C-alpha cells in the first residue's frame, strides 16, 4: 500500500495514503476528540465538528474525520486556535440540547460530558438558544427504548448503526436546519415503527439521547410488597459483562457474585437462564431431528433472539416456517417458573413476580408479547438490562468485590456449559450440535468443542460430520449479515440444514442492554470469557444436566410432548408495520 509522510504536532509519521487525519493522528499516538465518527462502520460524517484541526496552507479549520491525508501535510491538533474553536464547538453542542447531566442515564459515561470536563468548559455562554426550534421531549411509549430528542446531538451514529449493522433502517434524519432531528419515519413512537428493539443504537449513542425503558423501580416496589414473591433469572451473557459496570476488568466472570448480589437485593429465588437454555437445546435439538427425519421445513433457524424474531415477522414473513417454534430461554424459564415450579413448591403463581436480567432491550418487548402468557399470567414480568442491574447494585451500596460466590437455587439453577455459550455467536449452534450428535448417533462426542462454528466473521458456514452424514450449518450475527442468509433461502439457493441467527454483533454478549462502551475489542474479551466459563463447568452438554433430566421425568415426559408444546413452544405471525393515514 502506498504510504505518505505527514507532520502532526511536529512529529513526522508515515501512514497509508487515504487515511483520514483523525486516524493518522491516532497512529501517531494523538487522540483527536470526536462525537460522531465511528470507524467500526467507516462512518466519518464531519457532523459534530469537535475533531477540527489546523492544516498548513488550508483556509479555516478542517474536520479531521472527513479529511484524507496528503503527502507532506503539516497538521496541528492542539494550537491555541484549534483549542479555542473546539471549546466553542462544545459550548454550542451544549446549547443545542438539554444537557442536564445529573438527571441523565449516561451521567459519568457520556462522551460530550467527558469533553466538557476535558476542555475546561466553565460557562454556558449560549444558554439553550437552539433547543426550542427542534422536535422536543421524549418518546417513551414503548416497552424497550426511550428516545430523548432534547439530548440528541445529531451525530447520526444511531442512524448508521440501524442501517448498516442491522439493515432495519427504522430511523433517519428528518427536517433540516434548526429543525433537523432523528425520526422513526414520522412515527411519534418508535415502538410503532420498523424498529425491532435491538438497542444497538443505544450502544452507538455518545450521549444520553437513547436508553432503555428503565424498570428497576417497578422491581423494587415488587420486592417491598409483602404479598409478592420475587424471583429472578440471569442470562448467559450477563455473568461475563456485569463486572464492567462494577469496576472490574473486561472479561471477568462474575456468576457467583451476581447470584450473591441478587439475593442481597431481595430476590427470594435466583434461577439461571442457562437452565432454560439447556431446555431450549433439548426441545430445539429434537425439533431439528424431527424436521430432518420427517421432511419438515429446512433450514430450521434458531428463535432465541427477540429482535431477530421481530425482524423476521416484519421483513421476512414468508420465512416464518423456518423458525424453530421454541420460545427463547427467557420465556421458557418464565413459563416453567409460574406453571411448573410454582406448583412444585406450593406457591400461588399470581403472587410471583418474575424478573430477568438480560443483555438485551428486545427482551423487554418480548416479555410483553400477548403469546407469552402460557402460565395464565404474564410469564416474565420485568426485564432489567445488565446496565440497570449494575446501577442498582451500586445504589444498594453493595461492595461487589467483597461478595462471596454463591450458587443458583435448584432446580432451575443447574446448567451446563452448553447453556453458557448461548451468550456468544455460534453458541446456540454449538450447544445444539453437542446434543444432536449424541442423541442421533447414540454415542459420545469425540470432542466437545465445535471450533468450526465459533469466530467473529459475520456469516460463517460449517459442515458437521454426523457419522458419515454431512450436515451443513450456518451462523449469522447482526441482522445485516442475517439478511445475506435469508435472501439465499428466499432465492432457493440454500442447502443448509440449521442456521443460527443472533440479532446483535457478537451475539448476546454484544447486546443492546450491555455495558457501554461495547466495541469489537470488548466483545472479544467477553467472548473469551464465555468459552472460559464453559470450559470450567463439570457438565457441558444440555442433555447431561441432571435437573433437565429430572424435569422431563417429573413433568414434560419427553421432548416435544404436549406439555412442552404448551409451555415451551410458540407461534409467529407476520407483523407488517401499519402506517396510519393521518391526513
Amino acid at each position, binding site marked *: 500500500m502506498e504510504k505518505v509522510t505527514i507532520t502532526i504536532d511536529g512529529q513526522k509519521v508515515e501512514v497509508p495514503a487515504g487515511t483520514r487525519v483523525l486516524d493518522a493522528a491516532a497512529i501517531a499516538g494523538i487522540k483527536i476528540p470526536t462525537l460522531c465518527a465511528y470507524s467500526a462502520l467507516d462512518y466519518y460524517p464531519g457532523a459534530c465538528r469537535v475533531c477540527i484541526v489546523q492544516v498548513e496552507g488550508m483556509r479555516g479549520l478542517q474536520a479531521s474525520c472527513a479529511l484524507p491525508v496528503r503527502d507532506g501535510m503539516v497538521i496541528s491538533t492542539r494550537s491555541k486556535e484549534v483549542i479555542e474553536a473546539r471549546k466553542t464547538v462544545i459550548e454550542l453542542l451544549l446549547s443545542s440540547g438539554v444537557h442536564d447531566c445529573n438527571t441523565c442515564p449516561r451521567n459519568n459515561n457520556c462522551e460530550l460530558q467527558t469533553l466538557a470536563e476535558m476542555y475546561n468548559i466553565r460557562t454556558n455562554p449560549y444558554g439553550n438558544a437552539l433547543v426550542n426550534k427542534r422536535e422536543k421531549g421524549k418518546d417513551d411509549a414503548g416497552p424497550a427504548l426511550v428516545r430523548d430528542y432534547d439530548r440528541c446531538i445529531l451525530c447520526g451514529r444511531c442512524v448508521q448503526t440501524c*442501517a448498516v449493522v442491522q439493515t432495519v*433502517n*427504522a*430511523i*433517519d*434524519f*428528518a*427536517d*433540516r436546519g434548526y429543525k433537523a432531528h432523528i*425520526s*422513526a*419515519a*414520522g412515527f411519534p413512537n418508535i415502538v410503532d*415503527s*420498523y424498529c425491532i428493539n435491538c438497542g444497538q443504537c443505544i450502544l452507538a449513542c455518545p450521549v444520553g439521547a437513547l436508553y432503555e425503558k428503565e424498570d428497576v423501580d417497578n422491581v423494587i416496589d415488587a420486592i417491598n410488597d409483602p404479598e409478592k414473591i420475587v424471583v429472578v433469572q440471569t442470562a448467559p451473557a450477563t455473568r461475563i459483562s456485569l463486572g464492567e459496570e462494577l469496576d472490574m476488568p473486561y472479561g471477568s466472570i462474575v456468576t457467583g457474585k451476581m447470584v450473591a448480589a441478587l439475593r442481597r437485593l431481595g430476590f427470594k429465588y435466583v434461577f439461571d437462564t442457562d437452565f432454560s437454555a439447556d431446555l431450549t437445546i433439548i426441545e430445539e435439538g429434537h425439533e431439528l431431528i424431527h424436521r430432518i427425519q420427517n421432511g419438515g421445513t429446512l433450514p430450521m433457524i434458531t428463535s432465541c433472539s427477540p429482535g431477530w424474531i421481530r425482524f423476521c415477522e416484519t421483513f421476512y414473513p414468508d420465512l416464518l416456517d423456518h423458525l424453530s417454534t421454541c420460545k427463547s430461554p427467557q420465556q421458557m424459564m418464565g413459563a416453567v417458573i409460574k406453571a411448573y415450579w410454582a406448583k412444585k413448591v406450593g406457591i400461588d403463581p399470581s403472587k410471583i413476580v418474575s424478573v430477568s436480567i438480560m443483555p438485551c432491550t428486545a427482551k423487554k418487548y418480548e416479555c410483553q408479547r400477548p403469546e407469552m402468557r402460557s402460565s395464565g399470567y404474564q410469564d416474565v414480568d420485568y426485564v432489567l438490562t445488565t446496565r440497570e442491574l449494575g446501577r442498582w447494585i451500586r445504589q444498594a451500596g453493595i461492595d461487589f468485590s467483597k461478595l462471596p460466590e454463591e450458587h443458583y437455587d435448584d432446580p432451575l439453577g443447574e446448567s451446563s456449559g452448553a447453556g453458557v455459550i448461548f451468550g456468544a455467536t455460534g453458541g446456540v449452534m454449538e450447544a445444539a450440535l453437542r446434543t444432536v450428535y449424541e442423541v442421533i448417533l447414540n454415542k459420545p462426542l469425540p470432542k466437545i468443542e465445535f471450533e468450526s462454528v465459533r469466530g467473529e466473521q459475520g456469516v460463517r458456514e460449517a459442515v458437521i460430520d454426523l457419522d458419515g452424514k454431512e450436515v451443513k450449518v450456518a451462523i449469522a450475527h447482526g441482522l445485516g449479515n442475517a439478511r445475506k442468509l435469508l435472501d439465499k433461502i428466499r432465492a432457493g439457493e440454500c442447502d443448509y440444514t440449521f442456521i443460527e441467527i443472533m440479532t446483535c454483533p457478537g451475539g448476546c454478549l454484544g447486546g443492546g442492554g450491555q455495558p457501554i462502551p461495547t466495541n469489537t475489542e470488548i466483545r472479544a474479551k467477553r467472548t473469551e470469557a464465555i468459552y472460559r466459563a464453559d470450559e470450567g463447568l463439570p457438565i457441558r452438554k444440555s442433555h447431561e444436566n441432571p435437573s433437565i433430566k429430572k424435569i422431563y421425568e417429573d413433568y414434560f415426559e419427553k421432548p416435544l410432548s404436549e406439555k412442552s408444546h404448551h409451555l415451551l413452544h410458540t407461534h409467529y405471525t407476520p407483523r407488517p*408495520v401499519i*402506517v*396510519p*393515514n*393521518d*391526513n
Partner: protein
Amino acid sequence: MAILTEEKKEQIDKIIEKYDINDGALLMLLKEVQELFDNSLPVDVLDYIGHKLERPLSQLYGVSTFYSMFSNKPRGKYIIRICESPPCHLMGSDSIIDCVKRELGIDVGETTKDGKFTLETSSCLGICAVAPAMMINDQMYGNLTPDKIKQILSSMH
C-alpha cells in the same frame, strides 16, 4: 382527503415505472406522486413507494421533510411561494406576504379552507431583477405590488 385507493396505487405504479429506480430520479418521482395527493406525500403513500422501490420508509420520510417542495400534510391546488431572499426583502416582500395573508385569510404554512391556496415562503428564486418575486406552482411572477397580487389571485378563483 386523498386516500391510497387501489386506483391511486396503479397511478403510483405507473409513475414509478416511468422513472426507473435510481437515486437521481427520486425527487422527480416524489414530485409527481405528490400531485395525486393534494400536493402532499402522506406517510402511508411514502411507505407504499418504499416497498415498491425497496427503499426504507425512514429515508423517504427524511427526503420528504428535507425539501420544502414536499409536504406530508395536504396542501392547496395552488402553492404560493414568496421569495424571502435579501433582494426581494429590500424590494418589499414583507408587504407582499402581508397582502396575500390578508387576501386569503391564512398565515404562512396554512391552506385556505376551500383547499385552493397554500402560502409558503421560499429562498432565492433566481429572478432578482424583477424583485419582489413569487412562484405559484411552476409559474414565476415578478415586480409584485399589492394590486398585482389581488389581480393574480382573483384570476385564479
